[in-house]
């Protein structure tokens, strides 16, 4: 069953997330992805997250596709103009990739090539419009395509926005849905009470919202995220639990599994589990969450 079929049939979706390597050796990448085989329904392949140079999302997707896994191709406007974006979208379709996800992309100044010139020819809404247009069989210039690409289109949703910006984020969600978005992935969720309040403001039927569950690795990492990453708060009990636990990795897995299970109980249509470097722990999270 494809990701799109699963979303449409309302079955619980588990997305993995595997970032391609910085280098031309994909062997560890494939090994990690293989560990999740059969446990995740699709794998999101980030496009140079945090503007740090890595092999491209399209490259990672092509590898996973060849291995018989279902990838989600990420696209952002930072590094490509409308020609390059459309070219990659067509190539992805030709490679059999069925899912794309339009993301804002962090600014180059945050990454490891801060001297780069950002492109931003299209903005996020423009990119979604482009995806919609290509799926009608024409490119942005209105010229007929040979072979029409078809995708299940996703994007992101920032649940951490506060005050007026939250209204704006919800307004943007509406626009995204109008532009054909079938699913959105949120920022990492730890504070379920706060997330529940957010979900109450959503019209759940409109689109599938997949919260991200980030596997913490230490109390230090949790504290860092809580203090420094905008819009993400981690309950202090959670940080304390990791600190006190005799087996810290096990405690981190337990926390992630618990969040996954509770999100499922809340009626969320799925989750994205981000294990960054601890890919071997993914199945344990799912086991403990009874998925």
């Amino acid at each position, binding site marked *: 069953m494809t990701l799109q079929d699963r979303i449409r049939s309302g079955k619980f979706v588990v997305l993995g997330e595997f970032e391609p390597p910085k280098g031309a050796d994909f062997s560890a990448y494939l090994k990690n992805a293989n560990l999740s085989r059969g446990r995740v329904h699709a794998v999101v392949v980030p496009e140079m997250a945090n503007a740090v140079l890595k092999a491209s999302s399209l490259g990672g997707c092509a590898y996973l596709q060849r291995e018989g896994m279902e990838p989600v191709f990420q696209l952002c*406007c*930072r590094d490509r103009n*409308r020609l390059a974006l459309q070219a990659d979208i067509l190539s992805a379709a030709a490679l059999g990739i069925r899912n794309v996800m339009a993301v*804002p992309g*962090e*600014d180059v*100044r*945050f990454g490891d090539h801060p001297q780069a010139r*950002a492109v*931003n*020819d*299209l*903005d*996020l*809404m*423009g990119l979604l*419009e*482009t995806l919609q247009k290509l799926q009608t069989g024409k490119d*942005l210039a209105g010229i007929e395509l040979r072979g029409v690409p078809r995708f299940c289109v996703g994007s*992101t949703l*920032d649940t*951490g*926005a506060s005050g*007026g*910006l939250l209204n*704006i*984020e919800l*307004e*943007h969600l509406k*626009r995204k849905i109008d532009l054909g978005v079938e699913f959105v992935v949120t*920022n990492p969720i730890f504070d379920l009470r706060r997330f529940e309040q957010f979900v109450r403001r959503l019209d759940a039927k409109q689109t599938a919202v997949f919260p991200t569950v980030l596997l913490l690795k230490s109390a230090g990492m949790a504290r860092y995220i809580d203090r420094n990453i*905008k*819009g993400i708060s981690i309950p202090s009990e959670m940080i304390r639990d990791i600190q006190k636990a005799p087996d810290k990795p096990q405690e981190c897995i337990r926390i992630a599994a618990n969040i996954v299970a509770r999100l499922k109980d809340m009626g969320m249509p799925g989750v994205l589990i981000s294990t960054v470097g601890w890919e071997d722990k993914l199945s344990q999270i799912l086991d403990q969450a009874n998925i």
Partner: protein
Amino acid sequence: MIVAKQKPIEEIIETLKGYNKILILGCNECVTVCEAGGKKEVAVLASALRMYFMNQGQEVKIEEATLERQCDHEYLEEIRKTVDQYDAVLSLACGVGVQFLAEKYMHTPILPGVDTCFMGVTEERGVWSERCQGCGQCILAWTAGICPVSRCAKRLLNGPCGGSSKGKCEINKEVPCAWQIIIDRLNELGRMEDYERLIPIKDWSTERAGGPRKVVREDVRS
């Protein structure tokens, strides 16, 4: 106005190497306002250079002049008779002035003394900031008079990214988020319906992407 800032003196000295008679040429317009290349800056730079060359035991003659503008033939003509006396001209005008000089005076090396930065405003004395990128297709009517092309780090045309925080841009806490200003103003003006309209995919061909640009008005051409 065009905002520029003076180049570090070491860089200027490097480009002046080998020239013995130099004219430092200021401009009375934008670079005077942003205190980078007006009469005053010409005088200060000239004395610094004289001092430097004297300390080095080099005999280099530095002269000063400031034109009304360096982007008009009329004013550039004022140095036609004297320009050949110099081994080089160090222009403190923006890149426009430097080039117009270079195009006009084929036999004299023309060097830049400032880095031209952007089109902007004087927020307060000593603080200048960008307002326009000359994209050739103004959308300010729909964005409450605030430009997301020049003031949003990602040039977003349809609302803020997720990075906007407490009115500041995610790339730099000193920089206001353009979209926060736009939304605040639209609210203030009671025109939030402008926000709801999706700005179409921008045609950048009128921007620099379309190559060097030119405006021709037949009706005023002589």
